[in-house]
């Protein structure tokens, strides 16, 4: 028998992490963002517990500004696989009319995403939440544990992380505290795409190039996904061949011009491009260490 490939090793590690949570946590949940990493995480979970159904629900924190195709994909996938999905929307934020156009990306993300997530975790009393973050995404993530402790206020304390040795994870918490668990910690962006390719994992079509209506704003190609987007003077949606490298709220997620319409073409384009994945996200452009700060405040 030949040695395991690196993808087989990564797969086994992720499955081990998920089973550990299922076996030792009282009330876990898997955060599902509909993106490619979430799709891989969910696929691995179905492998980990087969032939059982997932021993925990999925939860989507919906900011109400996701691409329409994302929501359609979510609904179909959940129905096809008979999954238990909870959708949480920060209703207070909706009542206050919070949105990225009216309040800017920082306020919108904080209220609809970060606060929404905390509300949902408190509401259901989850003691562990899986997230699809990877260590190669961003500097502060590179130092986060796989089992990452959160105080009762959902705060991450980067200087006081528990030592994490071998594959023995300490997930002991007191009442009100919780764990964020990152089974994809050691995957890279290329690993994710390769695995999607090898395993034929369905992903949202927005990742593939197609002609879509976009306007260029502040150097970012924004797709006009619905009529909530106010057009500025002189802005006229233009049909362009574009695709998305990451998915989030449509007004905050820049498209890239591309003709890559198949997985190998996407991977090819990714390997030959010279900018990192998070560049398309408005959220990282704030001051230094912005992600670290957001995480301390409870952002996933």
């Amino acid at each position, binding site marked *: 028998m030949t040695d395991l490939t690196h993808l087989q090793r990564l797969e086994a590690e992720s499955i081990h992490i998920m089973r550990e949570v299922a076996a030792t946590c009282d009330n876990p949940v898997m955060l599902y963002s509909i993106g490619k990493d979430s799709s891989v995480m969910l696929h691995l979970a179905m492998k980990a517990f087969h032939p059982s159904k997932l021993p925990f629900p999925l939860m989507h924190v919906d900011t109400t500004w996701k691409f329409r195709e994302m929501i359609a994909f979510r609904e179909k996938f959940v129905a096809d696989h008979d999954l238990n999905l909870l959708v949480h929307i920060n209703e207070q934020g909706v009542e206050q009319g919070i949105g990225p156009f009216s309040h800017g990306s920082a306020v919108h993300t904080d209220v609809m995403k970060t606060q929404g997530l905390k509300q949902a975790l408190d509401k259901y009393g989850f003691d562990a939440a899986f997230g699809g973050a990877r260590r190669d995404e961003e500097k502060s993530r590179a130092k986060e544990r796989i089992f990452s402790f959160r105080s009762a206020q959902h705060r991450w304390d980067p200087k006081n992380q528990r030592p994490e040795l071998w594959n023995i994870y300490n997930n002991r918490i007191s009442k009100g505290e919780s764990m964020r668990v990152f089974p994809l910690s050691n995957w890279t962006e290329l690993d994710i795409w390769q695995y999607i390719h090898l395993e034929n994992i369905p992903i949202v079509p927005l990742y593939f190039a197609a002609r879509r209506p976009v306007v260029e704003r502040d150097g970012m190609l924004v797709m006009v996904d619905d009529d909530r987007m106010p057009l500025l003077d002189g802005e006229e949606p233009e049909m362009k061949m574009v695709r998305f490298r990451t998915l989030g709220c449509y007004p905050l997620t820049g498209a890239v011009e591309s003709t890559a319409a198949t997985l190998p073409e996407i*991977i090819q384009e990714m390997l030959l491009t010279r900018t990192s994945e998070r560049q398309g996200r408005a959220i990282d452009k704030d001051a*230094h260490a912005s992600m670290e700060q957001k995480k301390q405040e409870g952002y996933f």
Partner: protein
Amino acid sequence: MTENSKTYETAQSDLIASDIDAYLTEQEHKSFLRFITCGSVDDGKSTLIGRLLYDSKLIFEDQLASLEDDSKKIGTQGGEIDFALLVDGLAAEREQGITIDVAYRFFATDKRKFIVADTPGHEQYTRNMATGASSADVAVILIDARRGVLTQTRRHSYIVNLLGIRHAVVAINKMDLVDYDQEVFQAIEKEFRTFAENLDFSSIHFIPMSALKGDNIMDVGDHMNWYDGPTLMAHLESIDVSHERAAQPFRLPVQWVNRPNLDFRGFSGTIAAGTIKPGDPIIALPSGKTSHVKAIATYDGDLGQAMADQAITLTLTDEIDISRGDVISEFDKRPEVTDQFQAKIIWMHDQPLLPGRPYLIKTTNKTVTGEVTELKYKVNVNSLEHEAGKTLELNEVGLCNFNLDTPVVYEPYRDNAALGAFIMIDKITNVTVAAGMIDFGLRRATNVHWQAVDVNKDVRAEQKRQKPVVLWFTGLSASGKSTIANLVEKKLHARGKHTYLLDGDNVRHGLNRDLGFVDADRVENIRRVGEVAKLMIDAGLIVLTAFISPFRAERRMVRQMLEDHEFVEVFVDTPLEICEQRDPKGLYKKARSGEIKNFTGFDSPYEQPERADIHLHTGNMSAEDAADAVIAKIEEQYLST
């Protein structure tokens, strides 16, 4: 950038551009290596990793732009690119210019994919370094050519070896600052080899380099023609770490029992060693029940075979009871089961190890309670000499005997890390306090059998017409514990009850006269009192104890020694000011003047009970009333038989 890497990069880009499918197939079959970089602070670890990422073209344009920007603002290389800024990700670290936590980095060449654990150099972060070492196969130990082998170099080499890393690469860095002098390199190699004779590396490779200038990292460079070995990258690409775990006997620690319906009962876990196929005979431990493998069930269909490191689900031909914490093993070669073992531990917390205190012990698939029964010695990691000690402080390594409340399936760490490793968790704060590696099991456990006798606790208690119980009085010095306990005992005696009072006076002078007042001794003091009380309970007595017993963990330990309802915690709650006014033995006075150290309430903490069974507020009641209150509380359950 030199010719070599350009050629490599161009070839890869061409392949990606011309035949992406061929490229993907090639990627799929790459091998995998996890390594750790360590060494003393300022030896250039972060710079080395930054250089590896940069030279393997893993830095994107936007990251490069921000790196150039940062280098000018806060760099230490006079405006030139400061590679360390790439990896020192946390804001606090960038400000202080040090690395305070393990960072995991990813890069690949055409032969291998790598995960690097970049670990801190400062002594206070040795535990983070051990964390990085636990999952690595190779250690790259950096040495500053100007400074040679330092204390921290020895410490890190010892710890990576202790954690089972067999391959060391000694990277003698900053050769540019010693004029690329071969003699400097040779002197350091000699010094390290002498030190490493006491360690257990199967290979040690020495490479002279400059991470800053790029010599002998990816490219040879032209400064050190006297060195004819491989570059660091060439060596990491070729080092063979296949540790034959697949050839060892089969071990599956059961992590999760998979029961979707009555027809399917699977046992899920990650194979720790060996291979398995349908039809193989197995034995489940510790139960010793046997069966055969029916199938290896996966989402993609049943497998014909599975090997070490795969996460699988097994079904068996017989319905036998197996749960999380058990180990499914090859029938002929089975691991041992024990509740006592010897292990090396690395202490990872500010609060020192207290032998005798119960901690949670978590192995790969089981969590039990256990204590260190004996700290045999500490290891001085500079000289590797053994030293006596009562406790282990942060970052210290010791050899200990353990006693567990439930047996575990194990193998010596050096034979099988997956079944020989464990962590220790503080029961109250839930933090990880130590990492342990089992050497071997202790046989005593199987040789000492508790004699089951016909005259037992129930019979003895019945004869005395009472229910045995420990009334555990806790509180500050001079709070009134002994006074109240004395009164309670008198009142019980007057009613014909059989009692015994244990207090400092009759214990400290005899049984515990070898103990002082440092934390470790206080724990041992209480443990012995607990054991004596337990014997007296067995004799059917009502036991009263009057000890400050300042730590929750020890009171809980005694509670756990006994059966339910045999332990009643009585909190004599007297404010510190009142105790100090009373001061019958003049101890508070001495503590105030500094004559006595470790005095509870002053320089040693008192942890109040969270939920005492009886809470006496002595500020507003007499000792007599307090004694009556205690008796009233226990009347129905313990005295009315």
